């Protein structure tokens, strides 16, 4: 590699990027401005909200002497905080600004107080009755009565513009002076300030309770200290900054990774897709330098842009905390800055060192993906999901308790993020995890760079317009592609089978009310929509010739006869294998799985009831014959043949065909029939005879059903079946499906 050329490309691309307003905006201006502007915006919103808070929640105190305990000073609350931690949480809101009143106490006139007293007493009684009520119709009636009482109380509260009220219950309810003083706290939980109100009421009641306790103890001549056998004082040993840092340990690496991925986004777009869109790629490729030098030069620029974006974002964040932190947290800005400072230069350096391979990896993936696109817009479509994937992979760090382990270290983004999280949390450096995850990132980056260099080498990269659109973009020039590659075919199969099982489960007749239409849909929809359509859609998108890609060609006339000839032998073969397996399992004591067989019988029965034997034959014989053949012998077999050769393709397609049926017990018979169908497709040059054989096999099985057949040894039956099948498929003429040409490597 000529480093002079790499640097030359780097310098040119860097200058171009710096002159691109869009990249400057996204990679420089946005990171620098987003936090200060965001902080200013929130500050304004905060001030506006504060200005709106002039109306304090109104609380009425009726029949009890509790008003004095509201809006108490910070000192009173601090004492409460130490001894009653539970209350501390409740009054946390009230502690923020203890010098200002938090609620407005209202004195009600006699009529209003009487109404509130009556309604609250009714609601309290109804609530006690509801709590005590047994489940059942009577209980329901009691609870409904309670709801009505509460609604009436709420109407009174709202009419009086009250957020809450503390109402003392009649002293008659107390049987003795030692009984607790009973108050009813009624509140409008839908009030906008309900949290502050709840905290304030809880704090006031706690202080009042403390005062009553002290008085009663003094009256009895007992020191109040008796009731405080234990006093605890929470002391946080860790510095606040360190404690906050540990809590932020998962967030910081996540943010850094997202910033890096976002920073690489626009340079990747501009440097590859943009260059192609501007028409300068041909000029660049005509100059005397290697494709690797071009890619590495562009990769360095992308990495530099990503790192610059991260540094600018962090700097902007630091400045924002320093400038605005105190405005938000009432003096807590210094604390926020301390958190940032406590990260320390060493840890930050470690973060960058660990993130650098990851940034290279992200930049390489971004560039390579952008290289697949013809235009900036198309490249954006490829890169946006990448950002989502990166966010999800890095978001693992936010899950509580996630720590690095040897398996996660090998996951490219998750590994380094978890190692960094651990490093920030514990203060030390988990070297093993850091090295392993870095190695994994480097390995991915190397693979992606290698792939991307190959991409640049391909002619389609420079002249995408000359290569057809759709799936064709993945093809090379030189040879006509008659069928998809094996990998592509496997992709179609995976999608089809995934859909098939998902839709089959969703349409399972057991979940629905019995209906003829639903029974038919449960069988037909998965076959047609999930097996047939993906294969057809893929062939259409790729504009593959249906003849070679799906085997939808006219076969020689004799092939039809041979397919019909094979039908009974195929059935004999599958029944014989089935019988042999049963014997084997019975001999070895293995219990036969009955679930699937029973399910099949039920399906037959439902379809028979819905439309009689013709419907059963259509759903169980004709549709599988068409749909499964188009997928397994059409898309799958032709693609696999192109990449793996005929023999492997026949065996692998039969294996996948058997897997499709989802029954380990039926695997061997399906595999055998799959092999026969694949050979028939290859020899006849068409999947149509296979459809006849497949449908005929299923139809014959349905028609024979449980009829008593002549007893014959399964081994002998298998022999007859296999010989008949071999004769049928083997004696068909010499015409073959033209073997799809393998992909030709046209690179020098």
């Amino acid at each position: 590699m000529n480093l002079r050329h790499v640097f030359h490309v780097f310098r040119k691309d860097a200058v171009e990027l710096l002159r691109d307003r869009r990249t400057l905006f996204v990679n420089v201006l946005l990171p620098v401005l987003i936090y200060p502007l965001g902080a200013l915006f929130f500050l304004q919103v905060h001030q506006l909200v504060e200005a709106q808070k002039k109306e304090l929640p109104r609380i009425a105190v009726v029949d009890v002497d509790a008003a004095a305990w509201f809006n108490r000073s910070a000192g009173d609350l601090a004492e409460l905080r130490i001894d009653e931690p539970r209350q501390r949480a409740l009054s946390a809101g009230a502690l923020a600004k203890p010098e200002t009143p938090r609620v407005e106490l209202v004195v009600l006139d006699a009529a209003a107080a009487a109404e509130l007293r009556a309604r609250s007493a009714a609601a309290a009684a109804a609530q006690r009755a509801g709590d005590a009520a047994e489940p059942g119709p009577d209980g329901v009636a009691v609870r409904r009565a309670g709801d009505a009482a509460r609604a009436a109380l709420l109407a009174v509260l709202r009419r009086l513009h009250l957020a809450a009220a503390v109402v003392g219950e009649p002293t008659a309810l107390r049987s003795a002076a030692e009984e607790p003083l009973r108050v009813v706290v009624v509140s409008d939980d839908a009030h906008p300030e309900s949290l502050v109100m709840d905290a304030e009421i809880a704090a006031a009641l706690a202080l009042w309770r403390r005062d009553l306790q002290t008085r009663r103890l003094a009256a009895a001549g007992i020191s109040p200290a008796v009731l405080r056998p234990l006093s605890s004082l929470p002391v946080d040993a860790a510095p606040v900054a360190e404690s906050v840092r540990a809590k932020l340990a998962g967030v910081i690496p996540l943010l850094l990774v997202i910033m890096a991925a976002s920073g690489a986004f626009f340079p990747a777009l501009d440097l590859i897709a943009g260059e192609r869109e501007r028409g300068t790629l041909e000029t660049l490729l005509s100059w005397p330098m290697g494709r690797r030098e071009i890619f590495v030069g562009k990769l360095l620029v992308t990495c530099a842009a990503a790192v610059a974006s991260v540094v600018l974002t962090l700097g902007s964040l630091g400045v924002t905390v320093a400038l605005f932190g105190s405005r938000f947290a009432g003096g807590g800005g210094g604390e926020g800055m301390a958190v940032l400072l406590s990260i320390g230069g060493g840890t930050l350096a470690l973060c960058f060192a660990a993130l650098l391979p990851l940034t290279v990896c992200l930049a390489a993936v971004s560039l390579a993906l952008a290289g697949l696109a013809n235009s900036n817009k198309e490249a954006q479509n490829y890169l946006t999901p990448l950002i989502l994937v990166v966010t999800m992979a890095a978001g693992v760090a936010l899950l509580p308790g996630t720590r690095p382990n040897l398996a996660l270290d090998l996951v490219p983004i998750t590994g380094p993020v978890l190692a960094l999280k651990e490093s920030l949390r514990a203060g030390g450096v988990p070297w093993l995890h850091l090295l392993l995850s870095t190695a994994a990132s480097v390995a991915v980056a190397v693979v992606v760079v290698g792939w991307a260099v190959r991409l640049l080498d391909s002619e389609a990269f420079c002249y995408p317009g000359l290569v057809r659109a759709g799936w064709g973009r993945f093809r090379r020039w030189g040879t006509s592609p008659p069928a998809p590659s094996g990998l592509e075919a496997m992709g179609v199969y995976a999608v089809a089978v995934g859909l098939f099982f998902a839709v089959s489960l969703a349409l399972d007749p057991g979940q629905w009310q019995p209906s003829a239409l639903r029974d038919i849909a449960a069988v037909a929809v998965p076959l047609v929509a999930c097996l047939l359509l993906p294969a057809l859609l893929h062939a259409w998108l790729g504009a593959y010739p249906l003849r070679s890609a799906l085997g939808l060609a006219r076969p020689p006339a004799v092939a039809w006869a041979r397919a019909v000839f094979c039908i009974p032998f195929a059935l004999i073969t599958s029944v014989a294998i089935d019988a042999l397996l049963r014997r084997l399992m019975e001999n070895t004591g293995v219990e036969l799985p009955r679930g699937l067989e029973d399910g099949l019988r039920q399906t037959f029965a439902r379809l028979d009831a819905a439309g009689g034997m013709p419907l059963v034959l259509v759903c169980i014989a004709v549709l599988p014959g068409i749909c499964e053949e188009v997928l397994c012998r059409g898309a799958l077999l032709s693609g696999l043949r192109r990449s793996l050769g005929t023999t492997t393709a026949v065996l692998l397609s039969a294996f996948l065909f058997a897997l499709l049926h989802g029954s380990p017990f039926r695997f061997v018979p399906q595999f055998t029939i799959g092999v026969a169908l694949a050979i028939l497709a290859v020899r006849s040059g068409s999947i149509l005879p296979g459809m006849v054989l497949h449908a005929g096999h299923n139809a014959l099985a349905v028609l024979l059903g449980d009829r008593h057949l002549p007893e014959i040894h399964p081994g002998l039956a298998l022999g007859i079946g296999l010989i008949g099948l071999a004769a049928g498929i083997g004696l068909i003429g010499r015409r073959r499906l033209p073997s799809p040409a393998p992909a030709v490597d046209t690179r020098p």
Partner: protein
Amino acid sequence: MLALDQVCKSFYDPGRGEVKAVDGISANLEPGVVALVGANGAGKSTLLRLLATLLVPDSGRIVMGGVDTRRDPGALRARLGYLSTTTRLYPRFSGVELLRYAGGFFPLAPAELERRITAMVETFRLGDFLDQRIAGLSTGQLQRLNLARTLLPDPDLLILDEPTTGLDLPSAHALVEAVRAARRPGRLIILATHLVPEVERSADRLLVLRRGRLVYDGHPSRLGSGGTLEAAILGLLQDSDAATSERMVAAGVHRAVGGDGPEAGA
């Protein structure tokens, strides 16, 4: 200097199936001006891209100075100046920045590079807009700058694919003059063009392409000896293969390759 041996290039077209854009072309090109003529879609651009190593032949060989370009494309690119209708310039650069950038890929000392840039500025009258951003230049200015960029490394192989496309008459004339002035000993200039008068005046050798095949390879004067060159080329491009062969035999052409093939194009 540049030898083509049975060079073939096909690609797949959804409408037409497999298209042989270049179909078994052989030629031995020596320094001088070689004009490449053919109808749109005849395979001219594909052939020139093959020669520029931007494409790789499906079969056959292209040898420059004894080196197979498939083995070492860099060796050819180091001696190449390539200009086509699709080679654009970096819009965010100024003219002088572009020339410095382009020159940086060739083994030139800084002083030598500056000397050549100065020479190119004078030759192509780039001084008026040399410091302007390329995005704001006119088509004629762009093409002059592009030609200067192509000639800057003093290439032995100069490939020009319809360089006058989109230019007005004076600009096209100036560019043709510049190409003629670019002749020098040891330099092979391959010029794909539709300007027959220019071919007649400048070319030492004429290659006529039809449907990816070479239907005429010889001096332009021999083809046009029975009438005008334009009429002769038109005849070649429209004739059936049998008629082409007869016409060429009658004209005593240097070399001819006939035969029907599928519609070609790139």
